[in-house]
């Protein structure tokens, strides 16, 4: 039994894809913010 079945429903393919997309969006945001922070640090902000 999967974790999703434990929640009382089974995820279909599109639902799984959608969740991957949302996780991808959030992961990209974290990466972009980290990159912007690193940019400021590397180029010597005061």
């Amino acid at each position: 039994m999967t974790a999703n079945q434990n929640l009382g429903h089974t995820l279909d393919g599109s639902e799984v894809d959608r969740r991957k997309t949302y996780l991808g969006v959030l992961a990209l945001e974290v990466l972009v913010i980290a990159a912007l922070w690193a940019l400021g640090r590397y180029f010597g902000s005061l």
Partner: protein
Amino acid sequence: MRLLDWAVIVFYLVWIVYDGLRRTKAANEVEGYFLANRSLPWWAAGLSVMATQMSAITLVGTTGQAYADGMRFVQFYFGLPIAMVILSLTIVPFFYRAHVYTAYEYLERRFDSRTRMLASLLFLASRSMSCGVIIAAPALILSIVLGWNLQLTVLAIGVPTAVYTMFGGVQAVAWTDVKQMAVVVSGVLAAVIALILGLPHDVSVGEALHVAGAVGRLRTIDFSFDLTQQYTFWSGTIAGLFLMLSYFGCDQSQVQRYLTAKSVDQARSSLMVSAYVKIPLQALILMMGVLVFVFYLFTAPPMLFRPDYNAKVAASPRAGEFAQLDQQFRADFEHRRQAAHAMAEAQRGGNEQLLASTRATFVDAEARVKATRTKAGAIVKDVTGDAKFNDVNYVFPTFVTTQLPMGLVGLIIAAIFAAAMSASAGEMNALATSTVIDVYRRHVRKTAPDAHYLLVSKLATGFWGLVACVVAIYATSLGSLIEVVNRFGSFFYGSLLGVFVLAIGVKRATSRGAFWGLIAGMSVVAWFAFNTSVAFLWHNLIGVTVVVVVGMLLSLTERRQAPAA
């Protein structure tokens, strides 16, 4: 401006109007005119969402902001991707399956016609003014920098937009948005390439960015928690989240974009375009501003970037003092140019001690340039009476028109036009939808043939186009009006989101709670705006909280009173 530049601008305008007008056939019934018969692919709806959100001020103003202050503004958008995920899971399937034309239509189904009417009237009042401002702001800047007639510039942006939106409906808006986004991105990329190529041959991009970084231009993330600071990591992520939820979830000009998608999944995907692209694109636009700053380290800029005010001061009794400051500024610039070169050279050499000393010299030279500009600004304020004088919005257009080669000037001015037209077209279309669906069809003529509503819809679009142009012409002569319009928008946004939270998330919420909650939310936000220095992004969070708390309390009281009655 040379002939080729004019040709590029005229070609752009003709192309966009032609492309919009050829969608007229698809807009032969109300559902086609307002919702494109729910036929658009996710990427077109997604680009339309982005184009509606990005006005010319985003392009021109934030570039100037990065020039003067660095890239901190990007934090404003940190809540956007999270908001898009939340909306995709909640409001998008909700509205799509409810088969509504407007977000406010749902409020009547859930509460009553009074709450729907209040929300739609607030939207109409706020957006009709802001639509004018969206046209006015770039028209004013372009007319000053290029010496164009202001009224004609307003009409050159507003009239073609109103014409294709009026005849082609939402299809015209969405498909021209796609092209306009392409023009904007092309313009930004072309400007970035030109800026990189414009660096002195002995200074690399990396060295130039180190020089800009020394005076904080690449300081992007600010983790301090200060409610009075406009752009911090926390204000962008937490308070910005509520602004984005409200704007993309409750503002008809955005809701209408994704209601045109083919399916719920495509509507959700359309929001993901902004979720993925908005922050990197905004960072690129801000980087363009930093590169303009770097460019003007090695090429002499004007002391102040507002030619009309410079001319006024030159004709005033303080002209001599201003000319002396200008001479001082030239000397300060030359000192800073040499310091920037020395720092770039030290960066290349890798000698830490030399780098530290050249960096200190450069920071000092930049402070001197800034001090001279401040003194000049004080003279401008005194002579013109413009106490809020700030020339950041004029930096990028001045750079474009004085430094870029023929053809590229036309492309970037076309990109500024494109940003203004795409944002205002979406708003005219949404204003007409709310007028016809929430007001006319609901309160004036409840039953009529589809052709009648289609005709009224086109007339309503034309009317709002006309209003936008009139507001734009007056807004340019009333500087404070722009601020009033922006403030009014911020009173409205968080509170409206609160009403939708009550509608969708609180089963016990009643119509009385929602209506008075909305009024209470707006009043409290107005009080905060006028009496405290809390940054405006937080007003959205305050608005949502007040509406939800007041709405719930009133709803609970009503439920307790009901059995007794």
